[in-house]
């Protein structure tokens, strides 16, 4: 069996922006029936991933996903093409998630699932196991971060948005974004150190 991964399918880098992408909303507003579908297809995994990683219970994910795209449709006329579309989409996504937390009056909620599927990297089984465990640990750790740190970490470390766009999307000063990012990464690395020590104790000398 070919263990080569389908990079395009699992890779998490943001989709390259172009004139075509920036025009999707304009085409949608102009009545092009296929433009909105193209926009949904382009952003569906990134938006869904943001919701999943936000610590929201599984049974809410699908409704919030739909709410994001309904809001995108409703706000389409306010989009200005000089602004990166992905940052605008994530501003709406982050607002939908924040609204959910406000409605539920839940500040943080850690959901144990889902542990992500293993990513087949073509390496041996021990390495696959290590990668799987490390990814599963990270997914849980990100969901456990304080809300603002989690927002900034997802947008920076997963979605790779520039600091200025994260600041704009979340309504924060750029320096505040940098501070939350630093603290978030510090917390994740410190958590990883603790997890490694636990694993070593369990394995024994």
């Amino acid at each position: 069996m070919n263990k080569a991964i389908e990079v395009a399918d699992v890779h998490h880098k943001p989709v390259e922006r172009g004139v075509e992408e920036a025009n999707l909303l304009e085409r949608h507003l102009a009545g092009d029936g296929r433009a909105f579908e193209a926009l949904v297809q382009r952003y569906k995994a990134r938006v869904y991933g943001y919701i999943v990683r936000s610590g929201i219970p599984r049974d809410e994910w699908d409704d919030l996903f739909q709410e994001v795209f309904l809001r995108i449709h409703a706000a389409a006329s306010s989009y200005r093409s000089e602004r990166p579309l992905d940052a605008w989409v994530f501003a709406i996504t982050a607002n939908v998630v924040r609204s959910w937390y406000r409605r539920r009056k839940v500040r943080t909620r850690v959901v144990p699932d889902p542990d992500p599927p293993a990513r087949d990297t073509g390496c041996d089984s021990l390495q696959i196991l290590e990668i799987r465990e490390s990814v599963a640990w990270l997914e849980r750790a990100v969901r456990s971060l304080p809300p603002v740190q989690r927002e900034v970490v997802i947008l920076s470390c997963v979605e790779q948005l520039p600091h200025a766009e994260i600041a704009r999307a979340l309504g924060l000063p750029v320096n505040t974004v940098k501070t939350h990012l630093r603290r978030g990464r510090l917390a994740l690395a410190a958590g990883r150190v603790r997890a490694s020590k636990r694993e070593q104790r369990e394995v024994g000398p």
Partner: protein
Amino acid sequence: MTRRCERVQETLSEHGRAYLARDPDAREHVSTCAECRAFLVALEEVDAAFEALPRHQPPEEVVQKVIEAVRGIRVTEDDGSRE
């Protein structure tokens, strides 16, 4: 953990290993401090795990549902504008 460790780990969190390349004192500290070395290894494991994160795909029926919903809203809006 000393204050020095705190400062080094905070700066590593912001700039990664590149910080050590431009600060010989920090490099020297990390080479002699087991705690900070373990922190750097952990930070790089976290970054590697970020690179390996899978996509979370929504169910296809949910994707189609929202596309159809917006199509329906648009038809209603178009009807309204003709009235």
